[in-house]
């Protein structure tokens, strides 16, 4: 059963450059797919279409709902997007208010929204931080709160844009552990091949605005030489 | 230029608090076209930017540096009404969180810097951009700080803060110097922003009636200067009154009594305040004018 179906997605930037040149993609329920590719290859542009933040040509269906202007709110309840910059995502003055922002936008009464938010924060291990200001959190903590803000809406699909950027190794491990425990279908845009290996059953490789290849994470990494460990210390 | 508490007399801060409340409410209630709740993050972040930018020092000479105030920059970048809200937010945080500027004096500070300062930072830009953009921006920065500074001085004078002639001139000179610096910083900043990404700034609507804009600028400047002169005049008379009738002049209700010499002071003070009301009216009028022309 596919929760996400993309057909022929094309997008042109205002200045004329073609960002996406006909992308076809499918995500099945419970699957986790890694999205790899060079900076500027269209990965982030692609995921921004999935909840209607960007509009392009072609068709996108989320759990059978076509992503169109009329359905955006419905779609956004199903697709939880965790942005690359957590400081932009955590814009409310306290952690609790930020996580409750989503449910309250969907008309859930404040008490219920707050109760749900507390649960989501517990789930990501940030239950103690409810009254804290996001400014005082570390990178990893912010990422987890952002995730809670998305989980509280019970989405079908989790989309994560470079989730381990600027996290120290312990925080990276913690995030990986947390993500593995979540049942939602996942799409992870990342440069972190270790994360991809740990999470994804499948990977796609973006190049110049289209998917150049598909396969297991190892296959893709090998084919495109996508591991950072290619610098040899042996100079002989 | 942030007036702390303890300087302004009750009639002055009271009047300004009463004036600022409806003014800010009107602006905030989207009386000017085009501000919606979706713009709130932009206003907040821009306010944070100006706040942070105010702490950057601009070396202007050996051992001296100037700082941005930002009214003109915000007005040029966001438009006058959003800029007014952002400046009000900045002033509120400065007063409540950093004790920079008084709480009772907030109305006066908001009027000086968020309303008049922003308007005086926008009208020249609007009126003269066609002539020379750099000059228009420089004038905007300069007039913004000069207008707020003169108003602040006027409010202090009307409150009875003694200011001997030469101190007054030194203060004016000080404000003029800061005004020139603000103009220079604003121009440099705008130019640098345009070099970086021209799309970040909105271009001023070509005003088919820049005559009205020029008149509005002149009106604000003249009114401010006039108020300053009028407020400065009772100085000598006040000194006399103090010397000869200290007892009842210094009683708490002196401001409200109408006896002999004090009535003269009161009349001039009333004139000062009335003039300020006129400025306020001029600002609202020209503001509405701009809003209509923006359609």
């Amino acid at each position, binding site marked *: 059963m596919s929760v996400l179906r993309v057909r022929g997605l094309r997008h042109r930037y205002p200045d004329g450059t073609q960002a996406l040149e006909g992308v076809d993609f499918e995500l099945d329920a419970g699957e986790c797919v890694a999205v790899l590719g060079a900076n500027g290859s269209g990965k982030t542009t692609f995921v*921004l279409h999935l909840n209607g*933040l960007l509009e392009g040509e072609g068709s996108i269906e989320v759990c059978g709902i076509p992503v169109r202007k009329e359905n955006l*709110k419905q779609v*956004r309840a199903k697709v939880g997007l965790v942005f690359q910059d957590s400081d*932009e995502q955590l*814009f409310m003055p306290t952690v609790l*208010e930020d996580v409750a*922002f*989503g449910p309250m*936008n*969907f008309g859930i009464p*404040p008490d219920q929204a707050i109760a749900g938010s507390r649960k989501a924060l517990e789930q990501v291990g940030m239950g103690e931080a409810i009254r804290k*200001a996001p400014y005082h959190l570390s990178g990893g903590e912010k990422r987890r709160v952002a995730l809670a803000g*998305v989980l509280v809406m019970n989405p079908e699909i989790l989309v994560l844009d470079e989730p381990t950027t600027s996290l120290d190794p312990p925080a990276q491990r913690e995030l990986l552990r947390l993500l593995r425990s979540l049942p939602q279908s996942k799409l992870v845009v990342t440069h972190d091949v270790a994360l991809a290996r740990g999470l994804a059953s499948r990977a796609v490789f973006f190049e110049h605005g289209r998917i150049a290849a598909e396969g297991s994470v190892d296959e893709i990494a090998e084919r495109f030489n996508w591991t950072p460990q290619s610098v040899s210390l042996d100079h002989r | 230029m942030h007036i*702390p*508490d*303890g*300087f302004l007399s*009750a009639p002055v801060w009271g009047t300004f608090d009463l004036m600022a409340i409806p003014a*800010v*409410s009107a602006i905030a*209630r989207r009386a000017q076209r085009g*501000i919606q*709740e*979706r713009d*709130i993050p932009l*206003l907040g*972040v821009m306010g*944070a*930017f100006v*706040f*942070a*930018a105010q702490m950057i*020092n*601009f*070396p202007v000479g050996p051992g001296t540096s100037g700082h941005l105030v930002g009214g003109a920059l915000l007005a040029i*970048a966001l438009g006058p009404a959003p800029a007014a*809200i*952002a400046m009000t*937010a*900045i002033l*509120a*945080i400065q007063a*409540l969180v*950093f*004790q920079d500027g*008084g*709480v*009772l004096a907030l109305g006066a500070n908001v009027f000086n810097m968020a309303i008049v300062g922003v308007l005086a930072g926008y009208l020249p830009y609007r009126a003269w951009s066609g002539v020379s953009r750099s000059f228009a921006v420089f004038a905007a920065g300069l007039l913004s700080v000069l207008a707020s500074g003169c108003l602040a001085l006027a409010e202090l004078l009307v409150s009875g*803060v*003694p*200011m*001997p002639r030469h101190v007054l001139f030194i203060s004016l000179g000080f404000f003029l110097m800061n005004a020139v610096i603000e103009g220079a*910083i604003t121009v*440099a900043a705008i130019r640098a*922003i345009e070099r*970086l990404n021209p799309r*970040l700034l909105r271009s001023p609507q070509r005003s088919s009636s820049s005559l009205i804009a020029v008149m509005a600028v002149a009106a604000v400047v003249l009114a401010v200067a006039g108020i300053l002169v009028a407020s400065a005049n009772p100085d000598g008379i006040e000194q006399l009154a103090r010397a000869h009738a200290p007892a009842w002049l*210094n009683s*708490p209700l002196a401001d409200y009594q109408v006896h002999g010499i004090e009535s003269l002071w009161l009349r001039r003070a009333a004139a000062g305040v009335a003039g300020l009301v006129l400025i306020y009216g001029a600002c609202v009028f020209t503001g509405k004018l701009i809003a209509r022309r923006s359609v």
Partner: protein
Amino acid sequence: MHHVVVEQWSRARSPLHRREPRAKLGALLAFLIAVSTSDARAQPAFAAYAVLLGAAILASRLPAAALLRRAALVLPFSATFALITWWSGDPWRALALAEKSFLSGLAALLLIATTPVTDLMRGLEALRVPRMLILVIQFLYRYLFVISEQAQHMRLAAASRSGWRFRSAAGALAVLFARASERADGIYRAMLARGFSGRFPAFSRPHFHTADVVFLCASVSASAAIRLAL
């Protein structure tokens, strides 16, 4: 930034911290009005105001010396005007100027040192301050330190490279502006992604309890009594 200390203070616990933000605001306003309208020669009144603030400092369980030091930051500005006033032949007014500005500054500091900014904003909102202004202030405060840090980093980076000049400052300003603008776009996208459709959700309002009413009445009466009697 020194403000970090005030933030920590605001999250401490004490009888004063526990009071409702509107009650504290009301007490502050009453105090400020009393001080502002006090006659310059009413020195006993100023002493009494100081005692009142002393009691508030005790109730806040915050370090008095640090509070006084921070409140004293207003003094250089006031001292200048005070000197001018003294020199103009009005020593009482000069003294009153310094006393009034210091007492007012200390009182305002006590408010923010015992009330987290977010609670203060909730209080202001409950007092019918326009919602748009409250929200803008909220966002401003949220990103104030983020952007200030960026500014500091830029300053350090540029100063160590080519020295800090007018040009460098203008360039730094432009970059800060551009980043702020981008950030605003990012925030808006994040808002949309979580269902924002035009209005910010309203959160719960603070509630008055008996203790708050008692506190408010007591503070206002104390300020009024000093003002009228001394």
